[in-house]
Structure formats: structure tokens, C-alpha cells
């Protein structure tokens, strides 16, 4: 059976912490970091990266375009 797996990279220095990606993610991959970046915002990061399906929802709602999405098809026995 083929399964889709994804991964995201978030540019934490450009993230403004608006949290729109957190609500857009259907599999609750993204969370807000307790730390702050250089601008003083709590940045988004992949809190649960194993669940990512690479659906791109987080990346297309991000106003600052800080998220890159990678996706592969893996075969599961």
C-alpha cells in the first residue's frame, strides 16, 4: 500500500507567529515554540513531524511564505 509522507521546513527567523498554520493543519503537526525568534515572536515549528502528509495547507495560508513542503510516496508492506 502506498502512503504519502511529508515534511515541512519553517524559516523561524521570518515567522511572525500568527498561528494561522496551526489551525490550517489537518493532522496537528505544527505548534508554537515557547522560545522567541530575533523579532520577538513565538515561531511555529513541527511539534509532531511524524504525522505530516505534505498537504501544503500550512504553506498556502502562511502570509509570509516561510514554510516549504516536501512530500514522498512510500510503500508500506
Amino acid at each position: 500500500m502506498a502512503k504519502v509522507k511529508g515534511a515541512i521546513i519553517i524559516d523561524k527567523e521570518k515567522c511572525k507567529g500568527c498561528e494561522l498554520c496551526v489551525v490550517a493543519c489537518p493532522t496537528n503537526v505544527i505548534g508554537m515554540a515557547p522560545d522567541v525568534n530575533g523579532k520577538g515572536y513565538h515561531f511555529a515549528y513541527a511539534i509532531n513531524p511524524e504525522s505530516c502528509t505534505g498537504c501544503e495547507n500550512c504553506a498556502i495560508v502562511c502570509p509570509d511564505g516561510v514554510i516549504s513542503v516536501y512530500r514522498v510516496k512510500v510503500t508500506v508492506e
Partner: protein
Amino acid sequence: MEIKDIIKEENLVYSKTKLLTDTTLTYCPGCGHGVAHRLLMEVIEEMNIREDTIGISPVGCSVFAYDFMDIDMAQAAHGRAPAVATGIKRCWPDKFVFTYQGDGDLAAIGTAETIHACNRGENFTIIFINNGIYGMTGGQMAPTTLPGMKSSTTPFGRDVSLMGNPIKITELVAQLPGTYFVSRQAVHKPANVRKAKKAIRTAFEVQQQKKGLSFVEIVSNCNSNWKMTPIQSNQWMEENMFPYYPIGDIKIEGKLIKTN
């Protein structure tokens, strides 16, 4: 499969388009301008018309659009973007010309330019960002402010008997014979973003076919001046803005499909 095996160049499915510069956007966190900018640049990249596109940036929050969009841009006086676009398009009829305007720019000081450009059927695209407020200057009441909506100049809410009704400029221009494609979209949810991108793409295709003016309104939020978090402001927008500014295509191929 490990995460580091997925993160490889050949598996990349989405990243910020190269047509946006690396300058950090000056917009507030959660502002719809960022998504609108990116959609516009993605459409231009997909149509491969970067060298043939000239944008007009307005006065307002998006005044620095020329710093973010890596294409040829001009900057117009407040509200006069459709007039500048008319001039550019008439000099270079084969170039793609678009204006990017907010509601204070397009629906208040630039009403005359907007309506007459639409009525003449000038062959360019207008992207209209409607957040119901003057965002850059501190959240004063705009012509598109909803009845009862609080702003810094209407602290008790917009009183329709004193301040008049909000203007539905998109429905207004759809009535004019010069417009060919008129649509209203939003960019707050993934599904809306995809539909908005399709509408912008259609708008540029109309321009390619030289059919007339194409007009895309994007209902957006202004969380700083609405005094809400980005998520709250998107919910507020769904509950309050969408009943007054319903999402959907209004005019397709020169025919009105929705009247409200």
C-alpha cells in the same frame, strides 16, 4: 522513512515563489496581504509573463508592494492606480498590467478612477483588498466599514443614519458594461486560497484575450485595527464580513451570474 530522507530537493512540492523578494513583508502577523501578494506572483510565474507584467502599487499598507514583488512596478498617487494603469496599458497594449489596491484607495479617494476605468473597459486587472478599514493610518472608518463596526473614528460603531451605508464597489462595477470578469474571494483558509488563485489566474487570462477589465476583490482581515488575534479576526470576518460581502464569482464572460 526518516524526516531527513524526505527533505531533499527532488521532493520539494511547495516553497515561496522566486518572484517575491527575500525582503521581510512589512505587514502585521496574519495579514491577508501576504497571501494575496504570493498568489499574484505565483500566477505570474505559472503563466510565464514576468518580463511582460507591470504592476501598480497603491497608497496604503501595500504601498511597498514594489519592494516585495520582483517585477516591474510603478507607484501611483492615492486612488489613481487605475488611471496610471490605463496610461501604461494604452502605451503597451501587449503587456500585462495590474493594480493592487485597498479599500480606502479604491473605494474612497479613487472611486472616480475605478468606476470610469471599469466603464471604459480598459484591458487590465484590478486586485482589490477589502478589509473594511483604513489599515495603515490607524483604523479609521472606510466606505466599506460594516454597519455597527467599531473603528477609531466610529468608537460606538458605524451609525448608518449618520455615516451612510457601506459601499459594495464590486457589485457596482459588475453592473458596468466594460467589466468582463468580476469575482470576490478570500484568503483565510486553504480552500479559499486555492479558489482565489484560480480567480486571479482567470483575471490575467481575460487580459490576455483582451476582453475587458477583470476585477478580483479579496475580502481580508485587519487584525491589528480590529483589535483581535489573527485567528479571531478570520472568524469575525466569516461571521460578519461574508454575509455583507458574499464570496463567489459575480460576473463571468461579461454576464452577471449573481445579483445581491
